């Protein structure tokens, strides 16, 4: 045999002899490769999915509130590549149905091969886009909803208010075209859906000529340079186009997702993937390192013997490299395969779950539907990178153990008795109990104990940390924004502007009807299964004669409500500007603003004083107030709030309730919902919010993000767990003889198991301590950051309780099982064999 053959043969035989160690190393390498491949593949898939989704809306920016002249200038602007306008012509009036009539028009698209000025960016299944004044097109489901037969050429009668104002118009339309059909979940109250139908330019023109309609089109556009320019340069170009037509920056909305996808392909995804991969490599390297490190310590005698027989330092190193290479040769291809198949099989599943869960956000549903099953996720460079990274991890992990092995001298090795401490004496205990033994073993090699606890702890810290954010991503929180209390909310829908033509839609008129009377509440309470009915804090409208952006926007009305003394803590916790002092505010009639965005938009500042008129039904109450605080709490508050005492001092005569919360018992939830749907159907001002629908909406978004991350986390946890198994096994195997002696001296089997589980418990406790302290600390910081970044609309911190419990149980259960397993395995060997071991 040649020299290399001998070294290879030796490595091979050692792998076969130390089966459990080989297996552990193999699993660790396999998992590393698998995770790296899986994450890389998910990265490729996400990038492709984003590309596909964003290319569905491939415009660069939208310009809002344009004049027809500006549109004209835009359409001939040299920088503009494509331009599409849309105008919301009218609000459909049909009971509680929310809908609009719109007109879209593609004015320019230099990318199109043939110049077709008549495209409207709609996909029609049959027919054509409306051309004549009385033509209309939409999806068949829309026509069914308004009671028409959805066929091209069919007739439909619609009532609408042009520009959402003025008198209601009624008109007969002919269906000119049909878009693809959609399914609508029947459990959703009508008022929660938004419908749209498309009408012709001729119709708009006719109303405009008659002076009923003032066009204020919005435009979406593409500018030249997508291929060459960076994000910032694109932004500059778009803003300069806006400036050229005299449009203010505040009217420009960049399509940031699309722009960043095309100008900066996948930088964000690459960054995320790289960070996750580095973390995985770090953990894996620590685990693989510790397996080899303990391996060298265990085999010092064997290495010494090899050296005594003439093995050179290079040959010893070669033997370890071969061991790593052989295991990798099996583990890496397997890891690549599983790592690729995992996302390949799971990704469509996740998307499918998302699609079936999301009933309302039809845009994203369509987008996801459009790409499902055709996502490109195979990438040879990713597979190569994963394999290379895994191999590198193995090589790096081997360095220190190999250096240790090289240093082993033949003499030292044959004499060897594990002596990893320089300690000469030990204070010790007066009597020796099982716990003393446990403790002595752990402190004998403090570094190994610490490294194990640290590696296990770190992967668990990561788990808890991410869990803290994920558990705060709560479908219920999202749902609770619409239903702050109870299971249902009945809301009074009043005009959000001051409706001159139909004043009965205004809140001050509606409150006079006293819809939420005690009698009505009793009626609700009488429904079987309704446990409690509660009024939400009332709302009163205010108006002002002063010049104010805030009051112009809503045609002169802003809602006002109140906060209680108990609310002060929450309001103060999120205070942005000013100060909140309940008594001072009551004494001086002061108010708080609860929405930062609008505060800035309206150009408000702390200290602004307003002379307001409050509308209590037909009664008018003069009210002078000063704005003294700005805050943005999690809970729903009205835009402006005064103290409860100030509110009570107004002496309102009408009931200002706009919302009612209902609590139903679980058993009757469905029947209560049915009764409520019937009840609210009668009153066009009522909207029903049901918890199951809100939860469904919340969940569809939450699960899409949350589940894959949990999957990833559990795999990282598996690596940490392998580390635990490895530590336990090696710490027992290396001490086989010592444990034998202890048994010879009278340590019973149960005492042995107690001793070993004690050691495991210390590892577990240490790991838990680190993960629960550091994990929660970093988890909270991570949550704060995620909230600030509006990640998954996180608003409230949820302690990751069940994740922590799961972690503790898995760690405890796992190490107990390992101890018992090894204990059983050891019993198969007789005491004498164990004592003789290594002699």
């Amino acid at each position, binding site marked *: 045999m040649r020299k290399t053959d001998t070294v290879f043969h030796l490595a091979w035989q050692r792998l076969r002899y130390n089966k459990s160690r080989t297996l552990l190393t193999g699993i660790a390498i396999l998992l590393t490769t698998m995770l790296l491949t899986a994450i890389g593949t998910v990265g490729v898939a996400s990038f492709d999915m984003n590309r596909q989704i964003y290319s569905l809306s491939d415009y660069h920016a939208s310009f809002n509130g344009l004049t027809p002249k500006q549109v004209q200038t835009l359409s001939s602007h040299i920088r503009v590549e494509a331009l599409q306008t849309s105008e919301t012509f009218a609000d459909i009036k049909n009971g509680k149905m929310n809908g609009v009539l719109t007109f879209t028009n593609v004015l320019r698209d230099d990318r199109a091969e043939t110049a077709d000025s008549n495209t409207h960016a709609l996909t029609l299944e049959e027919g054509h886009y409306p051309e004549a004044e009385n033509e209309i097109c939409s999806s068949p489901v829309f026509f069914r909803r308004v009671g028409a037969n959805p066929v091209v050429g069919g007739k439909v009668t619609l009532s609408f208010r042009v520009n959402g104002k003025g008198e209601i118009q009624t008109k007969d339309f002919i269906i000119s075209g049909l878009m693809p059909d959609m399914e609508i979940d029947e459990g959703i109250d009508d008022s929660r859906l938004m419908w749209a139908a498309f009408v012709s330019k001729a119709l708009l023109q006719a109303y405009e000529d008659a002076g009923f309609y003032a066009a204020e089109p919005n435009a979406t556009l593409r500018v030249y340079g997508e291929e060459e320019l960076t994000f910032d340069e694109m932004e500059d170009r778009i803003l300069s186009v806006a400036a050229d037509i005299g449009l203010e920056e505040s009217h420009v909305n960049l399509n940031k997702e699309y722009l960043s996808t095309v100008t900066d392909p996948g930088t964000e995804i690459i960054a995320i993937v790289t960070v996750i991969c580095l973390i995985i490599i770090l953990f894996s390297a620590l685990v693989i390192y510790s397996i080899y490190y303990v391996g060298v310590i265990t085999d010092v005698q064997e290495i010494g013997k090899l050296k005594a027989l003439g093995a050179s330092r290079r040959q010893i190193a070669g033997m370890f490299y071969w061991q790593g290479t052989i295991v990798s040769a099996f583990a890496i291809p397997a890891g690549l395969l599983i790592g690729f198949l995992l996302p390949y099989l799971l990704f469509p599943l996740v998307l499918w779950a998302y699609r079936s869960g999301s009933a309302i956000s039809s845009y994203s549903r369509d987008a996801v539907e459009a790409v499902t099953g055709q996502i490109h996720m195979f990438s040879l460079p990713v597979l190569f990178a994963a394999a290379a990274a895994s191999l590198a991890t193995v090589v790096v992990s081997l360095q220190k153990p190999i250096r240790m092995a090289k240093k082993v001298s033949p003499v030292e090795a044959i004499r060897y008795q594990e002596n990893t401490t320089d300690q000469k*004496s030990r204070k010790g205990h007066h009597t020796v109990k099982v716990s003393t033994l446990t403790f002595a073993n752990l402190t004998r090699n403090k570094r190994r104990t610490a490294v194990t606890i640290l590696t296990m702890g770190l992967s668990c810290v990561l788990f808890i940390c991410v869990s803290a954010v994920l558990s705060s991503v709560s479908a219920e929180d999202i749902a609770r924004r619409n239903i702050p209390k109870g299971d249902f909310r009945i809301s009074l829908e009043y005009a959000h502007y001051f409706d001159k033509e139909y004043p009965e839609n205004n809140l001050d008129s509606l409150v006079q009807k006293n819809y939420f009377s005690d009698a009505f509440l009793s009626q609700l309470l009488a429904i079987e299964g309704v446990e409690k009915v509660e009024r939400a804090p009332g709302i009163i409208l205010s108006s002002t004669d002063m010049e104010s952006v805030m009051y112009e926007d809503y045609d002169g009305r802003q809602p006002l409500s109140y906060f209680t003394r108990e609310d002060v803590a929450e309001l103060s916790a999120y205070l942005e500007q000013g100060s909140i002092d309940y008594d001072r505010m009551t004494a001086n009639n002061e108010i708080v603003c609860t929405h930062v965005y609008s505060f800035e938009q309206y150009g408000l500042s702390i200290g602004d004083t307003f002379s307001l008129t409050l509308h209590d039904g037909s009664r008018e109450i003069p009210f002078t107030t000063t704005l003294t605080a700005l805050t943005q709490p999690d809970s729903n508050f009205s835009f402006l709030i005064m103290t409860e005492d100030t509110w009570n001092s107004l002496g309102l005569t009408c009931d200002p309730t706009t919302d009612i919360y209902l609590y139903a018992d679980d058993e009757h939830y469905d029947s209560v919902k049915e009764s409520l749907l019937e009840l609210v159907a009668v009153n066009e001002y009522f909207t029903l919010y049901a918890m199951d629908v809100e939860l469904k909406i919340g969940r569809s978004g939450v699960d899409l993000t949350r589940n894959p991350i949990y999957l990833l986390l559990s795999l990282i946890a598996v690596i940490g767990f392998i580390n635990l198994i490895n530590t336990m096994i090696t710490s027992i195997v290396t001490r086989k003889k010592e444990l034998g002696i202890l048994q010879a001296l009278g340590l019973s089997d149960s005492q042995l198991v107690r001793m070993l589980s004690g050691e495991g418990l210390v590892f577990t406790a240490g790991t838990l301590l680190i993960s629960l302290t550091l994990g929660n600390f970093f988890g909270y910081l991570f949550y704060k950051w995620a909230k600030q970044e509006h990640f998954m609309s996180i608003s409230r911190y949820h302690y990751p309780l069940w994740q922590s419990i799961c972690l503790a149980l898995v760690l405890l259960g796992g190490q107990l099982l390992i101890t018992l397993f090894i204990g059983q395995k050891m019993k198969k060997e007789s005491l*004498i064999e164990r*004592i003789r071991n290594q002699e």
Partner: protein
Amino acid sequence: MKNQTNTILQTEDLCKYYGSGDNLVKAVDHIDLQIMQGEFVSIIGKSGSGKSTLLHMLGALDNPTSGKVYLDGENIASLKADKLSTIRRRKIGFIFQAFNLIPALNVWENIVLPLGLDGKPLDEAFIEDIIATLGLAEKKRSLPNTLSGGQQQRCAIARAIAAKPSLILADEPTGNLDTKTGDEVMALLKASAQKYGQTLVVITHNEEIAQMADRTIMLADGRILSGGIPTDRKNDAKEAVFHAKN
């Protein structure tokens, strides 16, 4: 030695076989022996004669293939593992050739270990006395790896004696020591056993040590060549046979 009245250890037809067929090794082959309370017995024989195997079975470390081992009249060959642990820590003290101290524990802890495992209260004066007798008073807090071979074996002796076992089993206790240290250790072991009234069974290659014993059992190929039964008992046995014949 005195008090040679009661049998503390006895074997009946004790066998330990390894392997099977052509590879069958009869490590211990039909051994009957008897050791009296307080006796000092040495077991000698060549390598592979079955000395260690016999000692392991006497000390409840290994199970016989067949036959019985009576310790204080109880057949320990048929006991369960937990009961054997209790017997080992209460009735038997072991001394190994390789010392086999627990590296993580200091000298004191190593010595009181069997007591601790049994949950017995410490007879501190007694332990201190042993430590003083064995010359380890200065080394109580030292870890085993800082001790010389002689010191380590003295510590192992102290550990064997500390639980006041009735039987001390020593497997080549001087095998890893130089002659001078070996003699010292052996003298200490014999003196301690005598002082605390313990029965001492020692495996050795060393003729001198064998001669220090009250009786020497000679083994070859797993069988006893001589010394299996105490001399006075031998006469009793012969008499018994004689009476039976007549």
